[in-house]
């Protein structure tokens, strides 16, 4: 479905030196520095997958999404969507692509929402019956009927994002790119957005590629993660596999009746604060039950809980901080 081959994107950055002298120097003989935003990314995405691109700010996620959706031309490498190179056949390939940017809207500020959709209907040459059906379907998920006559400039962010989601799917594309779609949204709008993504993926088999910083998005939506940092791929794989590999441990939290806490030979005590001690152990070596049994032989336990290694741990480790 989507094939990225050795994608690279370089930017020439004009060097600006500080102060008036620097500004003058930059005017007369500007120095340039090449920024390698994306270096040699290759991956393959199948139809119907939901793939999360994650990485810290400036990692090259958005640049990658923009190259995949035909907005930026790669410096090297290419993107094939259903076998066709997007930078060569932009006009044909984008027909099968929908894009939502969390930080900018494709809706027309001065028009009513419905008028923006009408414009898209003509631009994508969708016939009236298909258009009505799609709009009806999307309305069922998102409930946009009540805002369809509202000018976009008067909408709240949540309403605008709903409008953008509908706009991105109005031509029933096979691939949907979402670049930080949940940014700035409240809980209920986030919920609606996630439901929308799950629904279109389930019903229409739409391939979804999203970048996000929201752990909830990843946990709820993505079966597969691609982690990028400094423009280089760090991880590509199934979410639970990555978790098992990068963070193969759990943490057992034990509360005692007093402040002394025994060590356990199979695990590491990572924290000891007051009556509470935390034991980190490898999932493949031990189970929590064994540790509890061992510890309660030494000392009376008041309470226990288990902390799973979560996505935030993965991200911390994968980002190398």
């Amino acid at each position, binding site marked *: 479905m989507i094939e990225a081959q050795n994608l690279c994107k370089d*930017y020439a950055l004009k060097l600006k030196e500080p102060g008036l002298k620097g500004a003058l120097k930059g005017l007369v003989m500007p120095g340039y520095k090449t920024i390698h935003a994306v270096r040699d990314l290759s991956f393959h995405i199948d139809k119907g997958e939901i793939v999360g691109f994650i990485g810290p700010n400036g990692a090259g996620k*958005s640049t990658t999404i*923009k190259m995949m*959706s*035909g*907005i*930026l*031309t790669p410096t090297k490498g290419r993107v094939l969507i259903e076998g066709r190179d997007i*930078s060569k056949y*932009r*006009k*044909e390939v*984008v*027909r099968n*692509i929908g*894009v939502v*940017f969390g*930080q*900018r*809207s*494709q809706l*027309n500020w*001065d*028009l009513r929402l419905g*008028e923006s959709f*009408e*414009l898209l209907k*003509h*631009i*994508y*040459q969708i016939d009236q019956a298909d258009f009505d059906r799609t709009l009806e379907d999307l309305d069922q998920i998102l409930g946009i009927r009540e805002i369809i006559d509202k000018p976009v400039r008067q909408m709240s962010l949540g309403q605008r994002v709903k409008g953008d989601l509908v706009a991105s799917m109005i031509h029933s594309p096979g691939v949907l790119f979402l*670049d*930080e779609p949940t940014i700035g949204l409240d809980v209920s709008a986030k919920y609606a957005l996630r439901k929308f993504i799950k629904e279109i993926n389930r019903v229409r088999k739409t391939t979804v590629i999203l970048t996000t910083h929201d752990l909830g998005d990843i946990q709820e939506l993505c079966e597969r993660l691609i982690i990028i940092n400094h423009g280089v791929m760090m991880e590509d794989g199934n979410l639970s596999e990555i978790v098992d590999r990068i963070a193969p441990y759990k943490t057992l939290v034990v509360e005692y009746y007093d402040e002394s806490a025994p060590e356990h030979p199979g695990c590491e005590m990572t924290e000891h604060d007051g009556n509470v001690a935390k034991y980190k152990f490898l999932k493949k070596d031990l189970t929590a039950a064994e540790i509890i049994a061992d510890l309660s032989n030494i000392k009376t336990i008041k309470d226990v809980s288990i902390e799973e290694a979560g996505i935030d741990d993965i991200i911390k480790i994968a980002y190398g901080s």
Partner: protein
Amino acid sequence: MKKYLYVVKTQIIKSMTYEFNVYGNIVMQTIIMITSACFWKALYKGQGMVGDVDADSMLTYVVLSSLLSVLLITNVERRIETSVVKGTVATDMMKPVNIFGIYFAEDIGNILALVFQNMLPILIIGSLMVKVPLMADLRDLPLFILSAAESFLINWLMAALFGMIAFSAVNIDALIQVKKHLLRLLSGSIIPIWFFPPGVSKVLGLLPFVYIYQLPLSIYIGRGDRAQQLSQMRIQFLWLVILTGLFLYAQNRATRKVMVQGG
């Protein structure tokens, strides 16, 4: 084609949203018309003909120049610039359309809205305060319409070529200003170039600018004979071909350089 027509229609609706915007241009064009009219009246005092044109035709020229200036309002440079600065160029690029086709359709939509919002008031003000701008010879009308249409295209193509610079340079405010004032000065929109020294007017005759304003206007006021007009229209057409060629050559190269700001 149908999708571009719909863009035209949408743009007309959008142009009507901010009605207040259009008054500025009416005021400015009124000032230009009246000062130019006073200027020409003073210049022609006691003289019948200057450069083959009498005072009365010159006043027609003034009013018509203001009317034509409305047709020649282009937004494409600013449109490209703001969408590059704001990063919305990304959403233009992911539509299955030629983005310059969209920009052209938007400009047409703007102008159609301005025909009522701007041209009509300027025509009325000009007729009342300067002169009713009647055509010298109605038989020249087809030629006038053809040359005005070519003017429009030449003007738009030049604007689009300028706008393309914004794809890589981002901010082209200063360039837009320079181009605007050069066009004012060199196109004969305020002072026809036949008033310039012969050497200068010969050089300007080779540049595309005079074929934007001065050629259709001089056909309208009936300056020169048919042979002269036709030979000028040949140069105008040549410029149209050259600029179209440049435009087609540059459009894909320009969009390849696009920078998306932010995010």
